[in-house]
């Protein structure tokens, strides 16, 4: 049995269910009790202020709560509200976090989850629109994932909370209200991190896209149905990254467009493109194309609409790679 819920409510369900199942799971952030975003709604009422913690506007201190608690065997979910705010305490979340398990001889795990809202579409400019998955994917020792549907959101957040490693799992504000089928709460399911998902089958070109851009890509694929057969793959995780699914798709289509709502320079799309070239060179009938944010701070006003990846740009890339 299943029902239709929104993307953000699916995340709330995941958090609530995990908190119910495991006492050591708790949420720490700013204004999470009052739920500035709905995924922390109705938590303090159920679990009390000790397990749903509001901190001052002190990102280092706030993350310190999560980091230290995780070292002490608890399972924190640290909510940064907006992805860009992770930069306020960046050395802690990237360097100290990523290296903890490895450098210290794999003695202890660091089971924590970092989440935040990211993404273009709200006309808020760089601070509130930037993505963080590419930056965190660059730092070793940190898992990075982003769900694109309510079903994936619930399953992936659960997997992240149960993972014994630091997992950065942002959510895109543009799909906050996206509705989708999710199994009843009685069904405890996980979507394992590190697994990609073919969201739409096709034969002539592979489009790799995630969260809001996945929805754009599906729209474009449907619009092109009588012209070009487009296969759309949602990577779901950036670290670890499911290369097998991608290569199997390329063996079929021989063409790849990567859509990434992150800057062109040094973004994750470049990493995938390099890996495809190394591991799947002979599968390519055309160069890998990327549809990314140009190398400028995300502008405000009305500029996002044509600067950021959008259906028009995705369609143009598909046509170009199939030429």
């Amino acid at each position, binding site marked *: 049995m299943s029902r239709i819920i929104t993307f953000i409510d699916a995340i709330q369900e995941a958090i609530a269910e995990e908190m119910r199942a495991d006492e050591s799971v708790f949420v720490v952030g700013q204004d999470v009790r009052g739920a500035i975003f709905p995924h922390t709604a109705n938590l303090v009422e159920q679990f009390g202020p000790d397990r749903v913690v509001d901190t001052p506007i002190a990102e280092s201190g706030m993350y310190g709560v999560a980091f230290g608690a995780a070292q002490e065997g608890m399972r924190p979910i640290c909510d940064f509200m907006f992805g860009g705010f992770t930069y306020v305490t960046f050395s802690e979340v990237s360097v100290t976090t990523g290296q903890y398990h490895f450098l210290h001889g794999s003695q202890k795990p660091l089971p924590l989850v970092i989440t935040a809202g990211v993404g273009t579409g709200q006309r808020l400019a760089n601070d509130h629109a930037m993505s963080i998955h590419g930056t965190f994917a660059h730092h070793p020792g940190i898992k990075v994932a982003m769900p694109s549907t309510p079903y994936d959101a619930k399953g992936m957040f659960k997997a992240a909370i149960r993972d014994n490693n630091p997992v950065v799992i942002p959510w895109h504000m543009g799909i906050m209200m996206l509705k989708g089928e999710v199994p009843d709460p009685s069904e405890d399911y996980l979507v394992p991190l590190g697994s990609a998902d073919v969201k739409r089958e096709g034969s002539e070109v592979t489009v790799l896209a995630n969260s809001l851009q996945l929805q754009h890509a599906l729209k474009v694929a449907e619009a092109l149905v009588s012209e070009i057969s487009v296969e759309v793959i949602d990577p779901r995780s950036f670290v670890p990254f499911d290369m097998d699914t991608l290569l199997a798709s390329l063996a079929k289509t021989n063409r790849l467009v990567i859509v990434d709502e992150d800057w062109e320079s040094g973004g994750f799309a470049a990493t995938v493109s390099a890996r495809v070239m190394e591991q799947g060179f002979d599968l390519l*009938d055309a160069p890998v194309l990327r549809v*990314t944010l140009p190398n400028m701070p995300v502008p405000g006003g009305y500029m996002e609409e044509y600067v950021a990846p959008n259906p028009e740009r995705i369609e143009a890339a598909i046509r170009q790679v199939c030429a």
Partner: protein
Amino acid sequence: MVKAYRMPKLAMAMNEGTVTEWLVEDGAFVELAQPLATVETEKVAYEVESPEAGYFRRMLEEGDTVDCDVVIGFFGDSLEELGEATLDEFSDLGDQSDTPEAIDTASDSPTHEKNFSERQKVSPAARKKATQSGINVSTLQGTGPDGRVVLRDIETALVSLQDLSLPAGTVLARVPMTGMRGQIAGRMQQSLLAGAQLTANWESDITELLALKDNLPTRISVNSLLVRALVLAIREVPMANACFEGDSIILYESINVGIAISVEGDSTYDTGLKVGVLPNAESLTLVEIDVQLKALIDRIRNNAADSKDLVGSTVTLSSTAGIGPPGLMSTPILNSPNVALLGPSTPVKRPVVVGDDIVVRTLLPLSFTFDHRALDGEPAARFMRALHDVLESPAGLLD
């Protein structure tokens, strides 16, 4: 002028809103800042105000939810104006200036390769498939961007070669096109596709040559004599002793004669073909040619050949003499990358004119395949003439 009223975006993460209650009548005149409707977002309810003064048409039912920026009403200077307004007029985002063109994909990365070299562009997948199928990409005109050869070009080339309809019936054997058979298949196809080869056929009178041969102190094979004839003819037309390499033709001083040798196939119903190489034939005597040729054939037939025996031919001899019917004319396929191949077959007795008499002579049918990319008609004809002359006046074959 009619102006659209759109669902306002009141909150940071507001993607849609619901008009729970209109606070003005449809068609009413509304003042600037007058409360217009109660709008609920995902979190809060607001009383939105009119941004204009004018007559207002309500385009949304109470209780309906739409995305932000969707048109939910119109303002007009008069009721008549409102009556004409349609939603279609406002499908774009209001009175904005034109949207700049969608930018190229990887933004500030080049979308077309700069031409740093004149090499033919071939996609990796196409190149791989071409190699596997024995197609020479350099012969193809690419239909991809910038003339790139892409998969569909290989597929097109293949389809035109294949007969896709298989007959029905009990299958005797299935011979996979792998191993030696696969190599032969690939090389033959590639040879035909790559070059501009044609075959000329004639007969040479070898009655005297055979008589000469029988009078030699040692048994010399006809093939050895033919090798010697080739050497002499090549002196006249060196271009017949050459190979293609990239965009050049390499003429060689040494005459390494490739000899087509039939061998056992990989499976019961199959045969095999190997090309042994007799190196430096120009420096060998007739007897030496014969001895080395026999040894080469033996080695190859006994699987004792080493790699030197199988590579480096500059011209090829492929004989079906004694196997095919007398007088067989054929169109042998060049042994790429050679420019020329001589294909003799089974001699035949014919009445010919000598002087003014008709006599019975033994004639050797010869097929000479050459690649017109290197060897034009005139030098080819001269080559064949030289060969013919030395075969019909065989004293020259003896050192």
